[in-house]
Every structure is written in C-alpha cells, then in structure tokens.
C-alpha cells in the first residue's frame, strides 16, 4: 500500500478516536477541546478528498465558530460563575 494510503488510514483512525473522546471524556472542557481538534482533522480529510471549498468553510466555521460558541456556552454553565474570558481556561 502506498504511503498516501497509510496517511489516510492514520487520519481516519485519529478522527474516530477524537470523536469518541469528544463524547465520553470525564470533563466537559476536555470534550470541547477534543471537538475543536476533531474539526481540524476533518479539514485535512476534506482536503484529502478533493473538496477544497468545503475544507476552507469547515476550518472557519466548524472548528472556529462552533468551537468559540461551545466554549462561550461552557463558560456560562460553570458552577461558580465569575467573569472569565476565553483565554483563562482553568478548570474548577
């Protein structure tokens, strides 16, 4: 099997593992971070399949906007609410 096939196989394994960890991790913050990483790897998968428009859109919307939305919502449902910015990611 040629090398690009092995790259595709590893990419898909990483996507499946990240998807599992994005749903079944212990802490909610970790789930969101894994989801953002998953979006990034999916961008590479779109590029590998030749869908370059979809890759640009997924990088900006799937990983960027959705990730920011999830982190902002996570900040709102934390148990002790203080004014945190998104750059302050200490877990409670």
């Amino acid at each position, binding site marked *: 099997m040629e090398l690009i096939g092995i790259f595709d196989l590893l990419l*898909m394994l990483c*996507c499946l593992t990240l998807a599992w960890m994005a*749903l079944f991790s212990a802490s909610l913050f970790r789930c969101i971070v894994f*989801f953002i990483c998953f979006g990034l790897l999916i961008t590479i998968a779109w590029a590998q399949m030749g*869908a370059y428009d979809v890759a640009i*859109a997924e990088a900006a919307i799937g990983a960027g906007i959705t990730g920011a939305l*999830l982190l902002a919502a996570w900040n709102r449902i934390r148990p002790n609410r203080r004014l945190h910015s998104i750059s302050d990611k200490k877990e409670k």
Partner: protein
Amino acid sequence: MNTLLFYSITGVSLFAIGLLGLIVTSHIMRKILSLNIIGVGIFMLLIALAKQNGESTDPLPHAMVLTGIVIAAAGTALALNLMIRLHDIKRANMRNLDDR
C-alpha cells in the same frame, strides 16, 4: 477497496459514534456535541460518494455540504442558547428550594 471506500466507512462510523453518544450520555452539551458529530459523519459520506468514479468530482454534494455546515453552526448556536436558558431555570428552581 480504495481510499474512498475507507472514507465512507469512516463517515458511517462517525455517524454511529455520534448516535451512541446521543443515546447514552445525559448532559445536554454532550448531546449537542453528538449531533454535530453525526452531522460531520453524514457530510463525509456525501463527499466520499461524490468522487467515486473518474477524476472529476460531482459538485452538487459539495454545495449541499457547504450549506449544511453553516446551518449546523446556526443550529448549534440555537441549541446552546436553549441549554443556557434551561440552566438558568434549573438554578433558579434550586435556589427557591433552598430558600424554603
């Protein structure tokens, strides 16, 4: 057994992982994440099937997936707003119970 078959199998597996997470987990935000992962799995299946024969790709599934990504982001924002509303109601209820 080419790469595109593997990609479509990966898309279907992502759909299955998302479905499992949607059924089994109980936190609302995990359910929202599961819905997003189901969406990404379906998009991957669509794009993998668009390139099956020949070198040229079918642009119609690309356009559908582009539309789908934007609508999924908007739907996620709506769902997160509803989750925060539920959370505020639940917290207000707990505070009422504590006061009594």
